[in-house]
């Protein structure tokens, strides 16, 4: 009897854990966005769970950028609802989204090349220490934290005072990701983080995404490169002409199918023959 009861409780706890793991941290339902007479998004639904890397794929003009701008509070949707931690939310500005823990790393990175890594890392969130009753920038703490955070992502800096301009594209991307995670991002939106990078830098960034995901951060990875997405993604949602073409789990879809979906369902058969596989 007691044993049965214990098993019952254990089952409850497990199912509780299960639901916790699978409850989306953020859901966007039937998002529509119109710019005047242009319909940029026509009913896109998307969700993201903690510890998951959800890839948002789509060709140029599919509406990826508009969609992430709605996720990060830059635009408001014309129609549709946004749920964060199962509560309806409305963003008046990007700051509202940032306060909830939705961080966006834009393509142009938001880094200042002439400033040092640690000054960039803490830009807008500078640590202070009090001296003579005044607040001063605690550059020592900033330097130490920056070095620790960067080396935890496998990036070794010459020093915290190294200007960001001297870093490679992949390293800059890593600084931006590390910064977002350090400042409490629960949802990390990466806008085409690998589009301008070489092979080695791309693998560095993908490894960084993997590390961040294992810490429980929900990663939204926007890309039009199927190989990069497949390398790290858990789920894949394809956007085409402002609408979702469906979501697929990892392992349930081939690169060729994904590519066909991105291209709008048209078979790229001929192209593939001459190119030998997915692009």
């Amino acid at each position, binding site marked *: 009897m007691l044993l049965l009861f214990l098993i019952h409780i254990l089952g409850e706890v497990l199912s509780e854990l299960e639901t916790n793991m699978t409850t989306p941290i953020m859901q966007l339902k039937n998002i529509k966005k119109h710019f005047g007479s242009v319909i940029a998004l026509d009913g896109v639904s998307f969700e993201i769970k903690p510890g998951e890397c959800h890839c948002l794929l789509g060709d140029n003009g599919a509406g990826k950028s508009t969609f992430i701008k709605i996720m990060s509070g830059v635009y408001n949707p014309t129609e549709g609802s946004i749920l964060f931690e199962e509560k309806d939310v409305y963003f008046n500005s*990007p*700051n509202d989204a*940032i306060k909830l823990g939705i961080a966006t790393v*834009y393509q*142009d*990175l*938001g*880094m*200042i*090349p*002439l*400033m040092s890594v640690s*000054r960039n890392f*803490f*830009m*807008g*969130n*500078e640590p*202070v220490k009090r001296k003579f009753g005044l*607040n*001063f*920038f605690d*550059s020592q703490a900033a330097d130490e934290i920056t070095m620790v955070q960067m080396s935890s992502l496998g990036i*070794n*800096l*010459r020093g915290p005072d*190294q*200007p960001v*301009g*001297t870093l490679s594209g992949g390293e800059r991307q890593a600084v931006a990701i590390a910064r977002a995670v350090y400042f409490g991002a629960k949802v990390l939106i990466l806008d085409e983080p690998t589009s301008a990078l070489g092979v080695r830098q791309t693998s560095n960034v993908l490894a960084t995404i993997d590390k961040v995901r294992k810490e429980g951060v929900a990663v939204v990875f926007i890309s039009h490169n199927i190989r990069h997405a497949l390398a790290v993604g858990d789920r894949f949602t394809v956007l085409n002409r402002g609408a979702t073409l469906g979501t697929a789990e990892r392992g349930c879809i081939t690169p060729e199918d994904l590519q066909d979906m991105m291209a709008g369902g048209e078979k790229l058969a001929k192209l593939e023959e001459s190119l030998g596989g997915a692009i």
Partner: protein
Amino acid sequence: MADERVKDLSFVQRFLSRPEMGAFCGLMLVMIFFFLIARDNGMFDPDGIRNWSVVASQFAIIAVGACLLMIAGEFDLSVGSMIGFSGMVLAIGSIHFGLPVWLSIIVAFVLSVALGAFNGFLVIRTGLPSFIVTLAFLYILRGMTIFIAVTTTSKTILSGMKPLAEADWLAPVFGGEILTGLFKWMGDQGWIETFSRGVHKGYPVVSGIPMLIIWAIALVVFGQILLTKTRFGNWIFACGGDAQAAKYAGIPVNRVKILMFMFTAFCACVFAMCQVTEFGSAGADRGLLKEFEAIICVVIGGALLTGGYGSVIGAGLGAILFGVVQQGLFFSGAESSLFRVFLGGLLLVAVILNTYIRRSVIGAGD
């Protein structure tokens, strides 16, 4: 393991990568140069030193404001007109309207800082380059100053401030001297020369340290600490480096920029207050071309015209360099028009040097 492609920088390279480096080396060179050619003409006697340090301090006061504003990514071309304007406010207030000098000084500060804020507000609101907006103010403010001076006092130069300033409690903060006792004592000891005749007989040739120099040092120290040791300093760099990125990071870019416009106006007003209270007169044409001289000091000091990079100490060194060259040419009896030739050349060399150093050491491609 560090990235093997990033070389460790030697001490020399680290020194070269400092923004102040150019101004420092330049200053050393001109110091040596003038020490060799103008020493016999009294340039490095106590009163000679005082002479060029006063000139350098004048440059430094306005350069600090221009430096912080330039690092924040903006210009203010109305600095010279602001000097004429605030000096005239002080003189008209206390001579023409008979206000107490301290009250006129406060009014001058309030008006110029408010105008600075308005300048900044216009730049932010219109989104126009600050170059154009403040160029408009260069003319508007100069014209208004002359107009007000002529309509109220029918003069463009007001003198007679000296006795008023000496009797006031606030004016000596700008026009006075400190450590006069020490200098008198040094004169008595025979360490510095004393006047041998006239009303000042027995007094040292340098009676003390003018407040102008104290203001310059204080502003440079304040500016450097603000820029490098505070959160706000990081915001100044960020605003000039990339205003959009700064906004994304949650920095109140508009507020930072407007505050820097106000600070620039404040510095111009300090300059004018020192000038009027020390020399005893105000002129509606005072401060002509000062905005450009301030910008030259800042650029020689290693700041980038495009913002986001620079040093207040560098601007201060640029100001000393400027003062030494201007007075050095005077002491060495050179034709004074050569000063401008030299200045233009110096500016060109500084900009080329800075661009080169930035490319090679910082590695930024832009």
